[in-house]
Structure formats: structure tokens, C-alpha cells
């Protein structure tokens, strides 16, 4: 019985292993380099004056922008999550399979997902800012961003709903549940971690968005009085700083804070998902 590996096979094995390792290390190096670069250039410039509640041309404080970012995220999510979630519930649970209406919605979301954000900015500027007369404002920005992240929310929620085993649905129907009860008691709770993942991704995009916001929310550096005031989110703030040439250091410091915020969002999301899961599986 000859069960020895041939040389050719052995070399191929080594080659493939080496290749995967090389690329993995390359990716890791690139990521580490970016993070390291930001930290090295940014951390030394994190001064208390950057966190003062009021922005002035002297302190170029990012605190108002941090709060504006939070507001932008909350308002956008309030708009987009119900819309996206119910659309997905319709698509997965209610719509007839292969219906033309569903195809149109799917195609539209796919196209919307692929459009560069600057196009959303232009649309928001023409429609919300000018036509609807909202002006450069928090609400115009939030409306624009909710359209921008809607495809993402629909997609991830759809996937989350689809991944719920049909056995649960069958079981619930067989016990005499109506559709509504099946969807809200059985399917949605099981899909929550997946839906949450989509919401986190959406949050990430909102936090990181600049192009669409410059045209719709403007760049006013302080906290707005109301929904109709112009705001500058952290990412836009960073863009403004780096554009002004005198504030490159502060821009790096802002990047550090942005990085930290994203890290916090991800950690919190993971914790919530875990808590939800263990809450159900005690």
C-alpha cells in the first residue's frame, strides 16, 4: 500500500500555506500601519482644549462635533430602522415569492447600495435642502443619510430574517399562531443579533460619512439650537480641519477620537448581542 504523499502534492501544500500566510500578514501590517500612524500623530495632540463645549477659532474644539455626531446617528437610526425593518419583514414574510413588486424593491435597493455617497449629497441638497426648504440642517442630513443606509439595513435585516430556521415558523403555525404572532414572537427575536449587526454597520457609515453631509448638514462647528440648525459631524469636522492646513495635528487628534468611537460602538454592540443571546439561553 503506497500512501506516501507525492513530492508535487507536498510542494503545492507548502506553497498554498505560504501564500495564505503572506497575504494575511500583509493585510494585518497595512491595518496596523494605519492605526499606528493615526495614534502616533494624533495622541500627542489630544489636548483638553479640544474637548471644550464651545468651538472657537482658537481651540477648534471637537466636542460639539462629537455631540452632533451622536444626534445625527440617533435621528438617522430612528428614521431608517423602522422603515428598513418593516420593508424587510414584508419582503421575507409577507410578499409572494417571485412577485414583481419584490423584484423592483430588491433591484432598487441593490442600485441604491452601489451609488457613491456624493450623489446622495447632491440629491439631499437639491431635494431636502432646497426644494423642501430645510436648509443646511441636522434634519436634512439625517434624511439624506437614512436614504443612504436604507439599502444596508434592508439587506442585513432580510438576511437575518431569512436565516431564521423555517422549522420555527412551521412549528409556530402548527400551534395555531397567526402570521403576526409568528413574525413578532418567533422570527424577529431570533433575528435580533443579525438586525443589530446591520444597525451597527449603518451607524458606522453614518459616523464615517462626509460627502453626503457637507451638502446637506453643512459645517457649522457648534451644537445646533434645533433640528433645522446646521451641524458638523466628527468626520466632517476632520475634513474641515485638514482642509484648513493650520490644523493638521488637530485633524489627527480627531481621527484618534473617531477610531475610539467606532471601537466603542463595536464593543457595545457585541456586548448587547451577547446579552440578548444569553438572556434567551440562560
Amino acid at each position: 500500500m503506497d500512501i506516501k504523499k507525492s513530492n508535487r502534492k507536498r510542494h503545492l501544500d507548502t506553497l498554498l500555506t505560504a501564500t495564505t500566510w503572506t497575504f494575511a500578514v500583509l493585510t494585518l501590517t497595512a491595518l496596523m500601519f494605519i492605526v499606528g500612524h493615526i495614534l502616533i500623530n494624533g495622541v500627542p495632540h489630544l489636548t483638553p482644549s479640544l474637548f471644550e463645549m464651545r468651538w472657537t477659532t482658537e481651540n477648534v474644539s471637537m466636542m460639539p462635533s462629537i455631540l452632533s455626531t451622536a444626534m445625527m446617528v440617533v435621528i438617522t437610526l430612528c428614521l431608517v430602522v423602522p422603515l428598513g425593518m418593516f420593508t424587510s419583514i414584508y419582503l421575507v414574510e409577507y410578499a409572494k415569492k417571485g412577485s414583481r413588486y419584490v423584484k423592483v424593491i430588491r433591484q432598487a435597493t441593490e442600485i441604491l447600495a452601489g451609488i457613491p455617497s456624493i450623489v446622495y449629497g447632491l440629491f439631499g441638497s437639491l431635494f431636502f435642502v432646497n426644494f423642501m426648504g430645510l436648509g443646511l440642517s441636522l434634519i436634512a442630513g439625517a434624511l439624506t443619510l437614512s436614504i443612504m443606509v436604507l439599502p444596508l439595513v434592508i439587506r442585513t435585516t432580510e438576511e437575518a430574517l431569512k436565516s431564521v430556521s423555517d422549522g420555527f415558523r412551521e412549528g409556530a403555525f402548527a400551534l395555531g399562531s397567526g402570521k403576526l404572532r409568528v413574525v413578532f414572537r418567533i422570527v424577529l427575536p431570533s433575528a435580533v443579533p443579525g438586525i443589530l449587526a446591520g444597525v451597527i454597520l449603518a451607524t458606522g457609515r453614518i459616523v464615517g460619512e462626509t460627502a453626503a453631509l457637507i451638502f446637506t448638514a453643512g459645517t457649522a462647528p457648534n451644537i445646533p439650537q434645533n433640528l433645522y440648525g446646521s451641524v458638523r459631524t466628527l468626520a466632517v469636522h476632520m475634513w474641515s480641519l485638514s482642509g484648513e492646513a493650520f490644523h493638521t495635528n488637530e485633524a489627527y487628534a480627531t481621527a484618534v477620537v473617531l477610531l475610539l468611537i467606532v471601537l466603542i460602538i463595536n464593543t457595545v454592540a457585541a456586548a448587547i448581542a451577547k446579552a440578548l443571546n444569553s438572556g434567551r439561553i440562560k
Partner: protein
Amino acid sequence: MNMTELKDKVDLWGTDNNSKTRTSERVAVDISYRAHDYNLAVRDCNLYYSDFQALKNVNMDIAQQEVTAFIGPSGCGKSTFLRIFNRMNDLIEGCRISGDIHIGGQDIYAKDTDVSLLRKNVGMVFQKPNPFPMSIYDNIAYAPRTFGIKKRGELDVIVERSLKQAGLWEETKDRLKKSALGLSGGQQQRLCIARALAAEPKVLLMDEPTSALDPISTGIIEDLISELKAQYTIIIVTHNMQQATRVSDKTAFFLLGEVVEYNKTIEIFSKPKDKRTENYITGRFG
């Protein structure tokens, strides 16, 4: 109710009745003298998935408090036929059904049938154990809650009774609040049986309930079926011929959407009348 009406309704049960013509003018029939009767009767049942005919002119009477086994090769329509009794086929797009299907004298496909209530009365256990991702307690309490029982005390009673009926109480009484997904496969399937029983059904449909289980769990569930038959009408789809002989009183052999033979289980397995049945049970095909 005058005599002509009564005769009309009784005629629904006659085999020689041209019941096909009635499908368009269905009415819920409440025959009072059969009110406590949970016999199942199927007349001229045809079922199509789009263009494919899955059931061909099936007629069958199933007596209450008996265990009836459906056997036959994969794709012969036995599961499809099982699912007409709780209208699970309604969920499949492109599924059309004709003929008369009665349970306890009521046309379950009548326009004014509340499918939820039908499914409450006709419980089902699936091939793959499918406990919901929630606690054992909540799994059992699911159906009672659906039908409006909210009081803790009442639910506690139902949960305990159902788990005892399914022989799962001793194993789970200390962990009712734990996830049902932590149970073993056999325990999960008994949980699903308990969950179905909690709805207080009259009929229990079991679609290959032991095919995903080990022999010991299978034995436990077979014993359970024998115990439950005193209170419920049970129909079980099985690929396991020995199982059919062990648990069932009657057996129906399905082939290509038709009932080839339907008789006492002893008869079917000792002296089958049809050559095809004989071939199947002796393992020559299928």
C-alpha cells in the same frame, strides 16, 4: 334541523355520494351527535403543487383513539397527506386541494374555518425537533398563550401536565427556565410533543418523529405514542417498517400519490393484498 337537512349532512359521509360537486358550496357542518367524535374522513382528495399532482383521489377513514401509520417511499405523498389535516399545505404557494376533508363531522376546508383553531385541535410534531429558541417553560406555554391564557397559575398547571404527558417532567422540572435548545435531540422531540399537547389537541399528527433520533430516544417516543393513543387520534408518518408494526393499529401504504392499501397493520404486514405493498414491505423497492 329538519330531516332533509339532516339527511343531507349525513350523506356527506356516504362513500357513494358525489361529494365533488359540493366543494363549491361548502358550509361548516356541525353534526351534533358527532360533536365528541374525532374521526377523520377524506373523500376524493386531490392535491396539486402547481402542475404536479401529489395526491390522487385519496379516500380514507381514520378512527379516533387509534394510531394510523402512513408508509411508502420518499415523495409518495404521505407527508403531504398528513399535512392536509392541519392545513399546513396552505403555507405552500401553488398548492391546490379538492375533495372533502372532515374531522369530527366538520369540513375543515370550509370558508368559515378558523385555521388557528383547527391547528389548535390538530397538533403536529415534525421530523426535525424544532423547539423555539426560548425557555422550556415558554415553549410549552406558547400555544396556551396564543389562545389567551395569561395567568401564571393556569400556565404552570398546563406546563406541568404537558411535560408529564410527554414523560419529560422529571428531567426538566428543575430547569424550566433554561433554554430548550440545551436539551438532547430526544428530549427536544418530547418537548415538541409536550408543546403540541399543551394546546389540548384532539388529533396528533407526527411526521417521521423519530427519524432524527437514536434508538433509545425512538423507543421512548414509541412508548409515549402507545400511551397517548388512549386520548388522542394519532397519525404517524414513518419510513421505519418495524416502527409501523410496533405502534400502529392501521397502516396505509402510499405510492405515487395514491393509497395502494389501507388496512389493519397486522393484515398489511402479514398478508398484503397488493403485490406492490408486498414488494415494499419486504424491501424489494423504495
